[in-house]
């Protein structure tokens, strides 16, 4: 077998400018792919941004591993979504165990709440409203500036640009959904992840799995919730329902068959797309979801 010698200068080309200057980069470890993308928009290449979850992994069901602890041990800053998106608050526990500072992105957001078994539960999927996403980004920017005040103006400039992009996204979504009549704006998905999205764009939401795919209060599948979803599909005249990229599609396929409707496509929900796909960033993920929804519901 022929050996391939990778020339030294090629390695040098692969290094980022900051590494080439021998300045060690600070590290942010995020729980989810969405929060990691927001962090990248704020810090650029100045920090290394890592995510505990890979694309397609479910934050509700994640089981912490020794590798997660090792990853968090490298962090200068940890970022979680909060409101128990990370089942049993695994990111908080990891950060506390390693004594790392932790930013909770949902801090300052007005939650959508459910009353489940006399317990008030805050829906953690707040990033589905671009306005809420702007709060995530500001929370990250503030924390980063506290740790690295020397580059505050860079972080602020990047944040301002990204907030403009979020505004543009929001306006674009409004324009896209304008083509769907109000009575057809019904979004049926695997689990109850789209409440903020539905509120922002005047959709009705229905899902058989509750707010989490895990076993928390108000989460998971119950026969009543399954039947209620089928009933609401039949009563509302919905023709299409959607599976999610991070949730097993089996249940929603069964429901579609039982209710006599089609699967309209796959939506990014608790996780973004793989590197190289259209959904690998928050903006891309939202754009692709909207196009999938518009393409089937209008």
């Amino acid at each position, binding site marked *: 077998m022929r050996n391939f010698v990778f020339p030294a200068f090629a390695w040098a080309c692969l290094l980022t400018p900051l590494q080439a200057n021998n300045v060690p980069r600070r590290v942010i470890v995020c729980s989810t792919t969405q929060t990691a993308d927001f962090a990248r928009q704020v810090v650029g290449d100045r920090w290394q941004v890592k995510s505990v979850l890979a694309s397609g992994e479910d934050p509700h069901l994640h089981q912490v591993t020794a590798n997660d602890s090792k990853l968090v041990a490298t962090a200068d800053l940890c970022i979680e979504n909060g409101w128990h998106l990370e089942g049993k608050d695994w990111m908080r526990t990891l950060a506390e165990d390693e004594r790392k500072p932790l930013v909770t992105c949902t801090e300052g957001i007005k939650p959508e709440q459910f009353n489940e078994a006399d317990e008030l539960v805050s829906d953690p999927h707040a990033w589905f409203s*671009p*306005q809420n996403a*702007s709060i995530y980004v*500001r929370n990250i920017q503030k924390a980063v500036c506290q740790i690295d005040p020397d580059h505050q103006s860079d972080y*602020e400039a990047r*944040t*301002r640009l990204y*907030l*403009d992009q*979020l*505004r*543009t996204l*929001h*306006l674009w979504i*409004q*324009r896209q959904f304008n083509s769907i009549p109000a009575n057809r704006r019904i979004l049926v998905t695997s689990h109850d992840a789209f409440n903020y999205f539905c509120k922002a764009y005047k959709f009705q939401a229905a899902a058989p799995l509750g707010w989490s795919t895990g076993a928390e209060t108000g989460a998971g599948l119950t026969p009543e919730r399954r039947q209620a979803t089928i009933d609401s599909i039949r009563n509302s005249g919905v023709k299409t329902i959607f599976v999610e990229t991070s949730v097993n599609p089996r249940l929603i396929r069964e429901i579609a068959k039982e209710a006599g409707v089609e699967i309209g496509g796959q939506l990014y929900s608790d996780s973004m797309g793989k590197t190289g796909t259209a959904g690998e960033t928050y903006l891309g993920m939202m754009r692709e979801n909207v196009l999938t929804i518009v393409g089937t519901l209008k």
Partner: protein
Amino acid sequence: MCTRNYGAAQVDVLPEVIAPGVFRLELTLTFPAERDPFAFDLENEPTVLVAFRGKNIIRTTNPVQAGTSLQVQPLQHVVEGNDEQSGGNEFYFEILAGEDSSVARGVRFRIFRDEQVVVDRTAWSHPGEPVRGTVNLVILAPPETEHAPEDPSIDRD
């Protein structure tokens, strides 16, 4: 092998000449300027910001009603020159359009010199976005009074 010599570009710092006359800026909003949920700083972001040659000349964080005219008089340090480089007076403006802002917004931007309008422009936003951009006021220097030497190649009958 092809080589190319790059000469050091000479950059002249142009002298600034203050333009004569009394200048006034008038900004008229056709919509209420309000806080924007996508602003960087929700509490302290200016609802109306106008900067002239890098300095803020209007900055307020309070809501401003539609139809309000904001004025700066006298507008100082207006320079004159031969083009946008030497006689350029660049204004940057940013007016936030509030939360319910799915339509395009307009702002009328007028500059007066000795009470004569020298710029009258209306800037429009994309639907829902803040009205922002730059306006350039070029005050041309008066032509030189000295006669240039005659060109002998031109026949004069």
